[in-house]
């Protein structure tokens, strides 16, 4: 039976004692352990092999360049994920030719709390009311899909792939359901003359 592979963190500790080519080879081994993981996430974000390979390459270039900043305060994979996420969102901004959210998105027809004077305390209060409203109205999956689409401006196809949604219509079904629930709940609140 082959010996158990040492953990990433143990390998990092070991390579910090190395220099030159030995250190470089240890870094290569560490990174190679995560090629498939990074490739998988990048492909699910981009939906395209070439774009995913470019993005994954950029991730590892950044990781190599900044490897010395990894102090071991988190798992290596977590540190690597922070780079993946950052590079991925940068890629999405550069690659997007059309907005992820349609101009005729039905969400714009759902009433929101009245806009008041630009007082930060009031704006924060309004934000919290909306946040609570969404938490009370949507289930966890709906709220996650809703957030990734409307706040992170991720496409529905990318969300479907990244979250491995296997239902028919994928993320779109959750968005449709979320908007229907929001519209209904908002209507009830307003019909009672209540504030959100």
């Amino acid at each position, binding site marked *: 039976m082959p010996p158990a592979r040492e953990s990433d963190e143990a390998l990092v500790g070991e390579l910090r004692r190395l220099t030159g080519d030995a250190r470089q080879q240890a870094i290569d081994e560490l990174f190679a352990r995560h090629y498939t993981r990074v490739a998988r996430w990048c492909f699910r974000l981009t939906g395209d092999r070439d774009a995913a390979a470019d993005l994954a390459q950029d991730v590892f270039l950044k990781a190599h*360049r900044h490897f010395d900043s990894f102090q071991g305060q988190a798992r290596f994979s977590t540190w690597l994920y922070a780079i993946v996420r950052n590079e991925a969102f940068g890629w999405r*901004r550069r690659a997007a030719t059309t907005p992820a959210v349609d101009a005729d998105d039905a969400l714009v027809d759902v009433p929101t709390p009245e806009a008041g004077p630009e007082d930060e305390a009031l704006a924060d209060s309004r934000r919290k009311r909306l946040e609570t409203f969404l938490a009370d109205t949507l289930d966890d999956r709906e*709220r996650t899909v809703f957030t990734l689409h409307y706040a992170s401006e991720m496409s529905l196809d990318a969300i479907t792939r990244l979250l491995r949604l296997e239902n028919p219509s994928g993320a779109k079904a959750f968005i449709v359901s979320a908007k229907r629930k929001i519209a209904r709940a908002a209507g009830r609140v307003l019909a009672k003359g209540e504030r959100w």
Partner: protein
Amino acid sequence: MSPDGQEKLTQWRQAIDATPDCVAIERLLGDLTPAEEAHVDHCARCQAERALALEFEQSVPGADEADVQAVAAELQRRIAAARTTAMSRPSRSLSPWLQLAAGVVFAAGLAYLVWDREPTIGKTDSDVYRSNTVSVVGPVGDLAGPPARFEWTLVSGAARYRIDVREVDSTPVWSATTADVSVAAPPAVLQMLVPGKALVWDITALDANGAVVAHSAEQRFRITGGSPLKRK
């Protein structure tokens, strides 16, 4: 989209956007304090980020496995090719990463590293993961329209970021803190933006104790198009 529709979408986005209480990405899958757990339980943004992080960590194969393996194979091929090139050239290091970074093998794939998408007024090339510098994404320079968001890159060890927006004479306009690497441009900033008027901003990265981890250079931007909000 109509301005009213955009305003509504902005309100919804602000309800699910990052707040100063949000947990840093690097911590979401770790051991959280009770206060952090309570926050994540209620926060749409943290839950969404955690879902993405979990998918990365678990990395479950799926129906797309053939595509994934093809991408991984391409990545390995590029690195192997860079290593072969490195070995054939006099070099102090056999690092394939240096060869890739030098653009020996795939210049096209690296184009974005040198591609400056925006005018360089105030732009910095500060290295994002260096221990004392925050690199910003935008807004920087002359913009055709108002920016939707302020964005910067993640700093290892930072729990949150403080953004300060000022007029060019240093008069404060707006300040906020967030655990995310971007924040929506608020009305307080948007209403200042008339064509030709510049604003400056910078980012301070803070650790969990509030100590400064890194700081960005001051960035300047202005819009050259119409004003986003009518002055009241």
